[in-house]
């Protein structure tokens, strides 16, 4: 793994000047991912924050070939690009080695793009799909998605007198759904743990066939925190075990980060405006439920690792 100093010398493949919000984790994650690529790469992205902030015509922040076509089909679009590569390579029209990365937000991945992603993974395209999970439809103004955690207030799951909880459902476990495709590599990462995340991107690119990485991507507008705290919020998500860093390589589970001092989830929740209502007296039970869900998930993950 390169040092930070070495990395700082590399060309930026997603360059500055884009219009993402200050404190947005998505471009941080993708810059780290692209810094982990050693060959030529083509990137595709679903409609969403990352796409609209980086490709405002006549400008582009992408120093690599880039394609966006629609919202629900980042995986299908890149599967077409990757297939074209195999076809043209076979016919001798392309000589180079090229890697393929498809990107989508949680809306474009957990929800509307799940079918297209599932299809691409099952077909075995040699591509890495990166989901930047900011836990709601942030580009359209913070609507709940199936990645939104229980208890979060969004513009379509607002806290109110009849429904004080905000979102009442638990979030979908997409990383496990992807792992259930028995693809060679699936992982969860966070740009706060950049070495771990970049190592995962390298591993994902190195495997033959499809790989999936779910990367936590705090949104300062939707989560309502000070933009200077993006990385701290991510660290807390990891140290509370809300967002376990782990990987599943050829079916073998490995937990990459086991907090020595596992923090109570309320420490992560109370830093975010979207959870403020949870600290009202009528939501006390809900806080306990959320903590229990996290503990159960964490213990299940550790047990699966132990089985391997």
């Amino acid at each position, binding site marked *: 793994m390169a040092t930070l100093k070495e990395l700082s010398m590399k060309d930026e493949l997603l360059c500055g000047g884009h219009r993402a919000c200050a404190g947005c984790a998505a471009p941080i994650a993708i810059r780290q991912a692209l810094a982990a690529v050693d060959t030529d790469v083509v990137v595709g992205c679903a409609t969403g924050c990352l796409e609209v902030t980086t490709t405002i015509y006549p400008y582009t922040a992408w120093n690599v070939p880039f394609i966006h076509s629609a919202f629900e089909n980042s995986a299908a679009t890149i*599967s077409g690009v990757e297939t074209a590569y195999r076809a*043209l390579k076979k016919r001798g029209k392309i000589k180079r080695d090229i890697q393929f990365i498809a990107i989508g937000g949680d809306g474009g991945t957990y929800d509307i793009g799940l079918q297209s992603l599932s299809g691409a993974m099952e077909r075995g395209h040699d591509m890495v799909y990166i989901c930047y999970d900011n836990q709601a439809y942030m580009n359209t103004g913070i609507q709940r998605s199936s990645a939104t955690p229980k208890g979060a207030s969004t513009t379509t799951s607002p806290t109110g007198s009849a429904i004080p909880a905000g979102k009442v459902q638990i979030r979908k476990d997409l990383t496990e759904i992807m792992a259930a495709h028995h693809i060679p590599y699936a992982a969860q990462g966070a740009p706060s743990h950049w070495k771990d995340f970049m190592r995962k991107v390298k591993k994902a690119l190195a495997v033959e066939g499809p790989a999936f990485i779910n990367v936590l991507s705090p949104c300062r507008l939707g989560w309502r925190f000070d933009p200077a705290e993006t990385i701290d919020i991510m660290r807390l998500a990891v140290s509370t075990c809300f967002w376990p860093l782990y990987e599943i390589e050829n079916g073998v589970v490995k937990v990459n980060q086991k907090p020595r001092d596992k923090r109570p989830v309320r420490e992560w929740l109370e830093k975010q405006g979207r959870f403020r209502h949870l600290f009202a007296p009528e939501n006390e039970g809900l806080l306990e439920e959320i903590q229990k869900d996290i503990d159960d998930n964490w213990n299940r993950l550790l047990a699966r690792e132990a089985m391997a």
Partner: protein
Amino acid sequence: MSRRVAITGNEAIAEAMRQINPDVVAAYPITPATEIVQMFANSVSDGKVDTEFVTVESEHSAMSAAIGASAAGARAMTATSSQGLALMWEMLYIAAGLKLPIVAPIVNRALSAPINIHCDHSDTMGARDSGWIQIYSEDAQEAYDNLIQAIRIAEHPDVLLPAMVTMDGFIVSHGMSNAEFLDDDVVRGFIKEYEPKHYLLDVENPITVGALDFSDWYFEHRRQVADAHTRVKDVVLQVAEEFKGISGREYKLFDGYKLDDAEYAIVIVNSAAGTAKTVVDELRAKGLKAGLLKIRLFRPFPQEEIVEALSGKKAIAVLDRADTLSLMGGPLYIDLRAAMYDSPGPRVKMVNYIYGLGGRDINMEQIAGVYNDLVEIVKTGEIKRSVTYLGVRE
């Protein structure tokens, strides 16, 4: 040496695709186009093509993958029908907006509801404003010839637009007829190698495809798509001329059948034109000056040429195998009426017949009845009904 064969429409299309040997085919099964996909899969399995075949999980992904492949620099194709085309709807507009020369045979089938697997033109007529070139085919021979020509038309540097070639579900797709296939070498020589100018896999010259336009640029880019369509007509005729050289078969923007001196004309697309031509012959034998115009290139619409061909007729019936439900008639009729507004001389009387929805047969008596109606309209000077549903139980 070309081969004369007894063949179904789907077999003819699958054979054309084998000969085209595209870089990428992404497709999903749907009746009645499924056979094309199956037969092409056999060509892949038997090594008769070296195409990369992507068995996608939906038509939306079929078109998305075709868009990715085409933007990457590959010659990309798909095939579908009906609901499949409807599911592609979002991506059809994107393929055209990105100016990607994807070519797709479409086997015409009715749209749900009620669900129905048989022929009408609701599917491709519904896509008429998507920015795709649309070429309609009467029989298997035309479908085969049109598909080969569509590659050249779509990829022409003056055009660079996606193109769909349609034929009627079951009637043509599963009906057996005679056709002549060209030699593989002749087809490959005709379609040439695809050489894209800007493409994703040209990694030394990175491009961004599908950028976001605000109100400062969107209009210009959509206008460029319209501009490309203005050049299609000439390219279609140029390609047809070259195709005649290798096949001996002649193609134009539309076909006139006994049209020049006709007083009463029917305008129609696809397989029912065959039945109608037989009716024209019978009426001519009885001394009625009947004629027919069969549209081949429907998008872009060759307005000047069609108006010229129809001007001076006493009355025209437009037969639509689709309805717009606008209560203004079928899509062909609405376009033709608009086009004929500019025709010189006295206003030509025009009426519309919507027929054959969901695969309902149309017979010679019904078509003869349409000509009789036209005679009656001219005689009385009166149009009793401008839109008639032909062959439906009222």
